[in-house]
Structures are given as structure tokens and as C-alpha cells.
């Protein structure tokens, strides 16, 4: 029936209302019915009434029946025509079963592809898993304390003369020979502070040294610390015996570890109440035995002496001790910081231009964030954690890109399947489900491989990273991480095939015109560039890191540290005549080249002296350094070193101006100084020779200038050095240069002599080269890991490239055939196929180089002495990538070019 446009129509809003109210499968008929009634009524009733009736009908229609979903019983099924068949839910069990069935068939059909895929994914996941283990381990340090969330370590931020500095020291004041710890009264001033604990390792930080304990015949050196009374209350180091509240109260008390108790008493439960001889100076009473420290404790000690014992006779040269506080539950540390600072300011007695502020760092953060950036502890190991996390994700991503590329390579075959499925009524969502399932299945397989390989490789990984990470079978978070990782990998890897292939139009596929759009080609090429870009960045990183590491380890420090050992001067050796006895006897023995002494070990020389507020000495007092022409406001503090006459020769140092100390010069032991070039620079002397210096109550003249040499790690700039001769000091170390190849014999001789002269102390020596090696442990680990990762990344990338070239050869089978028939040579076809890919690699090199350069500059910034990044590193990285990449590309291209054209063209 025809209607004029002017004729009334059913109210639209009511229809819209119905589309909301009425179940989808009923809408058509109901709305149709209503319309039909409407127009029928129009013929005999006025429009207004009809409209009203329309609404009445709607009201009468409203009934729960209408919004019930279509049930799946056979009767309602008859409600639908064929095209109306219900789509089963994507994750319907039957669907999932089907997905998996098809997925397994596909995997088995393309064994090579599946293998490459699983291999690539496993490699990526193994990386990730190890990093995950490592990071979890790093993050869990110091997290075992029961009051952990209320424990803080104090640090200070010092603002002076436009500079901001930070350290873990806390202010103290020296009044006469009394030391006042300014935070001791903090509890009184700030009620939120429940406990304050002072803690210090042996002196000469950061070179804490083992101390000697003796019980009858047994004598051992162990490393320990001093701590104030609340230590065991604050921290959760469980005691096997003794009272936590009072263990460290008494001046002569000592708490020892289970290990130490077993060493001396055989049984940790028998130790309490017994005495130990300490440094042959005093007897200490064992008041508590604590369980050996957990691996995850960043504080390391085998014994704790009472803080009080140290108070009067502090051996420390500075305020180098830690302060820990426990705040009451739920206290905001910044609030306490503010209170503490208000309380401290008037008591600090600092010069105007200097400001010190106390901050609190959560105990769990101190291990990873221990380097100060702008006066706050924000850098440190956390950067390694971040870098590695990033690298792990990179590698996983590379592996996933691979998967995508390989899946694409197969997509020509799979496209047909997609077409048929769509014709048979699959919707896109089902296909997405299918492809994701395949990816997840592969990821699961890879996961199984991964678990096995991590299990096998964990010991190796532990030795690489100097950790003892157990395999976390029992950790919930580990399994969650594992499942999460599998899922993430599957979803990431499956995303491209799932989203791209499922979007193809069935008609075009089945007609056989499967042209990939420009966009998808761009996308894939982009992925490849990205992959190789990452690999190249890693390659450059490998070169730089390993070169820097070997530079650091092999740089001539300016003195020869091979075959050089040092022994602490202690016990009987503190008496000068015994030292000389030892020296004279040892010097005659086989294997010993030279022997001398110095007031500290070579790698601890030249520290800048700070006074209690953490700022270099500014006012001239007895301890400070003064020199001819020192400006009023110069704030340079040196720590002078005293050595024997042979020191310069023993260390193989170079005297650039003037002369070395000499026994023949009567005044040398009273009036002579050697300084290094850095000290000359810092003192601002043009002509240093003959100028006077006063250091530590000794005034003398500079007789020579030493060529600068590195005393510390190359992270730090060379320190100024002032050396004088003191043959008769009661402290310091004995330096012995051993003859190469005679080490064993020499050590044996030394030990016999030592035991004769100093029987109460065990003979303990340190090799200097090993001490230095310790400084670069984290770089070592970095270098090794980077190498491993890079190798992996490149391997995975090449696997992917392999797949890609295979794919493009498949795409162009006919073209290649035709070209061959028309007389193209194998070489020209190989070139044709390779060209595109090698171009991509080239692009990747271009893009990656600046990024790599920037990243490596950032890493190197940490070193005071570093290699320069040179162009050849990029060239080499690029070339290696190129060469490695041309292998799979070449192999695949040649393979494609060699195919008999008859085969490839015949199909039509």
C-alpha cells in the first residue's frame, strides 16, 4: 500500500523504546505487528486515537516474555531462519576444543616452522624468566623484617656553596674527645620515633676489615659491625640464644652468628656467657647468638659489638655510621623528617652557607637506591634492574615479532582456511580466537621448554650474577609470573596473525587474489627494522661494555698491582721493633721481592677528609692540611698517608719532579713530603718543589711529585695524595711484593714468620688485584649478561628474517619462475630477493646507531675514566648484523632462485 509522505507515522520514540525493551529475536515481528495495526486503524480512526492505541498496545505488550533472551531449546531454534543461527560464544568449551584441535594439526603439519617458533619464543622467555628471578631477588633484599614498613634509614642532604650532596652519614658533634650523636635525642624530640639504632661497620669504610677473635688455640678473623642496643628489637634477626632487649647493652658484650658460635664453641647454644678475646686487647662476653643472616640482608656481619664500647675510643675518622629508626605504625616519614629537621637546625652549628637536612629512606629501598642523585638516594642498582627489565622485554618482543613474521609467512596457506571458515559462518571473533589459541598453545610449549632450561641453567646463571637464587617452586608469585608471561607472550605474538588474517574478505581470498595491502607490508617491514634496530643497539652495547670492562680491568693504574699483597699490622706487629724484625726476616726469604709498610692499603689511600658535617675541612685546625699560599676559603681536605722508605719503588710509582724518599737523607723522615699531580693541582701550586706543607701536626717540604695513579675504582676521579715517611707507626698494613710464579712458596714463608712473631693472630692476606676486581663486579656481570643477551637477540632476529624471506619467496614464486624462463640468472634473482631485506637492515643500522650512542654515553657517564665511543663500534655492529642477517636471507633467496620454473609455473 502506498502512503503519501504527509500521512502520519508511528511514533519513532516509542519504537526506539521497544528496541530497548524487546528481545532481539522478537523485535522484527512485534514492531511489524504494531505498524500494521497502526496503518489499518488509520483507515477508520483519527490519527490521534490511532497513536494512542499504539501506545496502549505497547503498554499491554510489556511482559517479561518479551525481554527474555532466545533460549536454545529446539522450539525457539525454530524461531530463526538459517542466517539467524546463534554464534556460539568465543570461549565456549566446544569452540576451544576445536581451536586446539586445529592448532595442534597445524603445528604438526609445519614441524619446521613450529620448531623455529617454539625455539625463538623459549629463548625470549628464558631471558625474561631469568631476569624476573633476578629482579625479584634484587627487590626482595631487606624485605624480611617484620616491622619493615616502619623501618627507615636516615640520610643527610648537604647544601653547601651551590652544591648538593648526600650521604648516609648522620650529623655528630665533637666536643673535646666526646662525640655527640645528634640523633640520639631524636626520640625525645619526636614522639613518632620509637627506636633509634646506630650502626657502623669496621673502620676504613668502604674497606671494612675482618677482626681477630681468639679462644685458646682457636683464632679467626671475622667481619662484624657495631650497633646500639635496640638493634635486635628493630630488625628481625632471630636470636638462637640470649635476650634481644639487652644483648648489646653492656660495653663488653658481643652478639655472634651461629656460624661464629660453631667456629669457637662447636654449638651455638653453648656460647652465651662465654668470653672471647678480641684483637688481643680485651675479653668480650657473648650475650646472644643470632641465626646466620638471611641471604636477603644487605647488612652483613658475623658479630655485633656494643656501640657503647666504641663510643669513648672511636676509631673512626668520620661520621661514617648509619642511623636506623623505627617509626610508630602508620607514620608518614616526611612528617618525621620535618620535625627532626626543625629539632636539629639550631643544634648543628653550621656556617651560614651550609645547610644539612635529614631524610628517611624506607629500609627496603636502601639496597637498590644507594647512590645519591641531587642529595637524595635515588640511583644505584635500581638502574641495572631497570636496564635488565627493559632488555628482557626487548628480547621477548623480538621473539614475538618473529612469531608474527613466521605466522605471516604461513598466512598464504592459512588465508584459504580463513576464507572457507568465513563462508561457513565463522565470524571474525572466532578466527581471532583460533589464531590466539594457536599462539597460546605455542607459548605453552615454549613455557615447558623454558621451565626445563631455566632449571638446568639456574646454577650457571647464579654463578654469573653472584647470587644464590633457589628455584622458586613454592612461590606463588613465580607461578603467577610464569602464567602471566606465557599469556603475555601468546597474546603479543598472536596479535598480528589474529587481527590481520581474520580481517581478510572471504570472497577475495577464495578468488585467489590475495594481495597484501601496502599497509601490512609496511607494518611487517617496520617490525623487522625494529627487531634489527634493537639487536644492533644491543650489539653496540656489548662492544662498549666489554671494552670498558677490559679497559677498567687492564688499565695501568699507575702502579703494578700484580703479585702484591697486604697484611694488616696488628697484635705484636704494632710494636715497631717486631715489625722491623718481621720485615728483615721476610725480606730474605725466597719468593719475596720487596716489603714495606703504609698507613693504609693502597686502594684506601687519598680519601678526602670530611669533618662531622660531611663537608671538607674549611677551618685550619691541627688535623687539617695547610700549605704555602693556601687561600683563605680553600676547602680541600686531604688524608695524608705515611709510608716506609721503599714504598715508591715497591709500588712502581713514577716520580715526575724532584726525588723519592731516601734513607740517606737525614731530614726525610721528619721534613719531607711527596705529593701527586692532583694534589699539586688542588693546592694550586705552580712550583711545588720546596714549598712547605703542614699536615697532621707535621710541617715539612715537598721533595717530589708523583705521577698520578689510580688508587680507587675508575668510577672515581684520582684523589689528591700527600705522602710522608713514618717507619714507626703502630697501625697500617704491610705491603709485600711477591716474585711471579713463587706465590705459594712465598706465602708459606711469610706465614711461618708471621706466626712466630705474632702468634695470637691468624695470618690473613689480601691480593690487591683481587680487591680491585671486586670493585668491578657489577660491570663484569653487566658485560657477561649483555653479551649473552645480544647473542640471543641476534639469533632470534635471524630466525625471524629466515621466515620473512621464505614468505616473500613464496609470494613471488611465479614471478621468479617467469624471470628464470626469460633468462634471469640465479645470482640476479638472489639479489632481487635479498635487496629488500638488506635495505631494511641498513635502515635499522641508521636508526639504531644514534639511540645506541645515547644509551652508551649515559652508561659510561658513571665512570670517571672511560673509553670513548668510536665510529668503528657502530660500523662493526652494523657489519656484523649485516653479515649475520645475510645468511638466512641468502640461503632462502638462493633456494628460491634454484627452484625449477616448470614446477612453479605449472600450477595453472
Amino acid at each position: 500500500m502506498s502512503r503519501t509522505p504527509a500521512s502520519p507515522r508511528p511514533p519513532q520514540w516509542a519504537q526506539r523504546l521497544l528496541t530497548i525493551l524487546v528481545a532481539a529475536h522478537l523485535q522484527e515481528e512485534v514492531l511489524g505487528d504494531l505498524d500494521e495495526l497502526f496503518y489499518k486503524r488509520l483507515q477508520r480512526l483519527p490519527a490521534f486515537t490511532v497513536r494512542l492505541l499504539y501506545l496502549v498496545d505497547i503498554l499491554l505488550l510489556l511482559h517479561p516474555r518479551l525481554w527474555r533472551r532466545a533460549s536454545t531449546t529446539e522450539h525457539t531454534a525454530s524461531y530463526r531462519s538459517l542466517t539467524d543461527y546463534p554464534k556460539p560464544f568465543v570461549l565456549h568449551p566446544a569452540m576451544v576444543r576445536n581451536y586446539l584441535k586445529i592448532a595442534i594439526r597445524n603445528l604438526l603439519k609445519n614441524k619446521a616452522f613450529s620448531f623455529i617458533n617454539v625455539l625463538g619464543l623459549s629463548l625470549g622467555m628464558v631471558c625474561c624468566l631469568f631476569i624476573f628471578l633476578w629482579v625479584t631477588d634484587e627487590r626482595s633484599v631487606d624485605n624480611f623484617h617484620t616491622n619493615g614498613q616502619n623501618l627507615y634509614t636516615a640520610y643527610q642532604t648537604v647544601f653547601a656553596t651551590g652544591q648538593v650532596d648526600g650521604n648516609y652519614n648522620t650529623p655528630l658533634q665533637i666536643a673535646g674527645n666526646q662525640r655527640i650523636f645528634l640523633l640520639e635525642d631524636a626520640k625525645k624530640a619526636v614522639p613518632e620515633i620509637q627506636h633509634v639504632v646506630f650502626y657502623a661497620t669496621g673502620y676504613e669504610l668502604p674497606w671494612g676489615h675482618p677482626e681477630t677473635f681468639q679462644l685458646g688455640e682457636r683464632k679467626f678473623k671475622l667481619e662484624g659491625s657495631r650497633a646500639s642496643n635496640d638493634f635486635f628489637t628493630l630488625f628481625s634477626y632471630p636470636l638462637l640464644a640470649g635476650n634481644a632487649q639487652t644483648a648489646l647493652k653492656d660495653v663488653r658484650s658481643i652478639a655472634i652468628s651461629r656460624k661464629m658460635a660453631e667456629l669457637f664453641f662447636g654449638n651455638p647454644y653453648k656460647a652465651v656467657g662465654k668470653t672471647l678475646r678480641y684483637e688481643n686487647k680485651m675479653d668480650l662476653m657473648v650475650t646472644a647468638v643470632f641465626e646466620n643472616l638471611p641471604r636477603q640482608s644487605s647488612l652483613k656481619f658475623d658479630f655485633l659489638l656494643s656501640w657503647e664500647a666504641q663510643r669513648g675510643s672511636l676509631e673512626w675518622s668520620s661520621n661514617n655510621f648509619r642511623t636506623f629508626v623505627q617509626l610508630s605504625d602508620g607514620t608518614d616519614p616526611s612528617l618525621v623528617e620535618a620535625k627532626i629537621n626543625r629539632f636539629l637546625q639550631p643544634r648543628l652549628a653550621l656556617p651560614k652557607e651550609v645547610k644539612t637536612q635529614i631524610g628517611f629512606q624506607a629500609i627496603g629501598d636502601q639496597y637498590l637506591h644507594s647512590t645519591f642523585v641531587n642529595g637524595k638516594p635515588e640511583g644505584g642498582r635500581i638502574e641495572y634492574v631497570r636496564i635488565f627489565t627493559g632488555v628482557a622485554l626487548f628480547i621477548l618482543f623480538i621473539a614475538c615479532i618473529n612469531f608474527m613474521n613466521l605466522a605471516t609467512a604461513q598466512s598464504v596457506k592459512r588465508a584459504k582456511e580463513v576464507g572457507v571458515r568465513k563462508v561457513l559462518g565463522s565470524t571474525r571473533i572466532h578466527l581471532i580466537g583460533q589464531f590466539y589459541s594457536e599462539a597460546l598453545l605455542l607459548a605453552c610449549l615454549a613455557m615447558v621448554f623454558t621451565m626445563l632450561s631455566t632449571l638446568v641453567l639456574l646454577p650457571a646463571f647464579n654463578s654469573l650474577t653472584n647470587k644464590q637464587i633457589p628455584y622458586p617452586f613454592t612461590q606463588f608469585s613465580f607461578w603467577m609470573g610464569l602464567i602471566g608471561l606465557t599469556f603475555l607472550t601468546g597474546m603479543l605474538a598472536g596479535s598480528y596473525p589474529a587481527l590481520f588474517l581474520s580481517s581478510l574478505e572471504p570472497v577475495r581470498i577464495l578468488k585467489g587474489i590475495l594481495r597484501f595491502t601496502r599497509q601490512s607490508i609496511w607494518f611487517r617491514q617496520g617490525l623487522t627494522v625494529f627487531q634489527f634496530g634493537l639487536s644492533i643497539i644491543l650489539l653496540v652495547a656489548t662492544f662498549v661494555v666489554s671494552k670498558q670492562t677490559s679497559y677498567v680491568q687492564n688499565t695501568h693504574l699507575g702502579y703494578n698491582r700484580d703479585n702484591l699483597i697486604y697484611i694488616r699490622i696488628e697484635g705484636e706487629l704494632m710494636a715497631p721493633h717486631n715489625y722491623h724484625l718481621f720485615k728483615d726476616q721476610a725480606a730474605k726469604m725466597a719468593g719475596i721481592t720487596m716489603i714495606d709498610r703504609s698507613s693504609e692499603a693502597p686502594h684506601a689511600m687519598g680519601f678526602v677528609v670530611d669533618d662531622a658535617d660531611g663537608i671538607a675541612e674549611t677551618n685550619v685546625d691541627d688535623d687539617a692540611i695547610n700549605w704555602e699560599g693556601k687561600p683563605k676559603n680553600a676547602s680541600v681536605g686531604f688524608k695524608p698517608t705515611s709510608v716506609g722508605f721503599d714504598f715508591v719503588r715497591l709500588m712502581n710509582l713514577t716520580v715526575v719532579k724532584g726525588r723519592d724518599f731516601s734513607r740517606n737523607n737525614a731530614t726525610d723522615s721528619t721534613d719531607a713530603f711527596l705529593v701527586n699531580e692532583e694534589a699539586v693541582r688542588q693546592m694550586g701550586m705552580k712550583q711545588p718543589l720546596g714549598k712547605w706543607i703542614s699536615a697532621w701536626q707535621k710541617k715539612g717540604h715537598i721533595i717530589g711529585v708523583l705521577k698520578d695513579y689510580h688508587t680507587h675504582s675508575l668510577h672515581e676521579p684520582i684523589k689528591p695524595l700527600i705522602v710522608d715517611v713514618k717507619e714507626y707507626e703502630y697501625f697500617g698494613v704491610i705491603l709485600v711484593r711477591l716474585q711471579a710464579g713463587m706465590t705459594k712458596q712465598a706465602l708459606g714463608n711469610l706465614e711461618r714468620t708471621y706466626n712466630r712473631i705474632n702468634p695470637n693472630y691468624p695470618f690473613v692476606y689480601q691480593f690487591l688485584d683481587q680487591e680491585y676486581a671486586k670493585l668491578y663486579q657489577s660491570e663484569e656481570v653487566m658485560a657477561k649478561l649483555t653479551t649473552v643477551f645480544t647473542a640471543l637477540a641476534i639469533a632470534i632476529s635471524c630466525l625471524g628474517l629466515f621466515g620473512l624471506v621464505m614468505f616473500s619467496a613464496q609470494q613471488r614464486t611465479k614471478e621468479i619462475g617467469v624471470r628464470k624462463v626469460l633468462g634471469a640468472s640465479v645470482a640476479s634473482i638472489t639479489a632481487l630477493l635479498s635487496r629488500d631485506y638488506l635495505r631494511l637492515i641498513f635502515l635499522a643500522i641508521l636508526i639504531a646507531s644514534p639511540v645506541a650512542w645515547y644509551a652508551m654515553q649515559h652508561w659510561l657517564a658513571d665512570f670517571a675514566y672511560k673509553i670513548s665511543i668510536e665510529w668503528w663500534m657502530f660500523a662493526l655492529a652494523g657489519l656484523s648484523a649485516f653479515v649475520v642477517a645475510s645468511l638466512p636471507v641468502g640461503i632462502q633467496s638462493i633456494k628460491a632462485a634454484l627452484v625449477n620454473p616448470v614446477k612453479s609455473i605449472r600450477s595453472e
Partner: protein
Amino acid sequence: MKGDQLGEFEELVLLTIALLYDDAYSVAVVEELGQRLERPLSLGAVHRTMQRLEEKGFVHSRFGDATAERGGRRKRLFIVTKAGEQALQEARRVRNDLWAGIPKAAFGGGIA
């Protein structure tokens, strides 16, 4: 729900569907039955009943043609199934038996 009791109104609707045979759909049933009962029926009531009948298996439905006056929408056509026919026969038999059993005197017949 198969073999369920046939309600009274359901029976009427089912009979109408049978009557309309080839063109039995909701609006037609509303009009036909409305005329015969001489009272207006609501579309909702009829619609619901037809749905119920289908659930009970007494009718079978399919989509018919779309018409302009339905706004281009298809109508749902109903046809009585075997089970529907049996249910109607049964209802009829019960009624007939009842009619047959009513004593003549009951309806004021008798003496004449």
C-alpha cells in the same frame, strides 16, 4: 512443556490459527478473533499466547514476507502442528462428551 494443558484462550487462538490456515499471524488473529468475540483484543495478549503455544509445540512458526505497511518487516506466520491438532480434538471431545451428558432438563427443556 509438550502435551501441556490447552488453556481456554489458547484454544481459541489455536482454532483461529487453524481457521486462517495460510495467513495466520498475530494481527490477523487479533482481528479475526476480535470480530468473533465482539470485544477488542490486545495484541500483547495474542502475541504472548502464540508464543506459549509454540513453546508447547502446538504451532510451528516461520518468517513470512515483508510488507510495506509493516515498515518493511517480515511477519511471523503460524501453522498448527500435529500435536496442536490432537490437543484441539481432545478439547473438542471433552466438550462434546460434556454436552452429550447434560440432562435435557438442565436447560429448561422438558415438559413440552
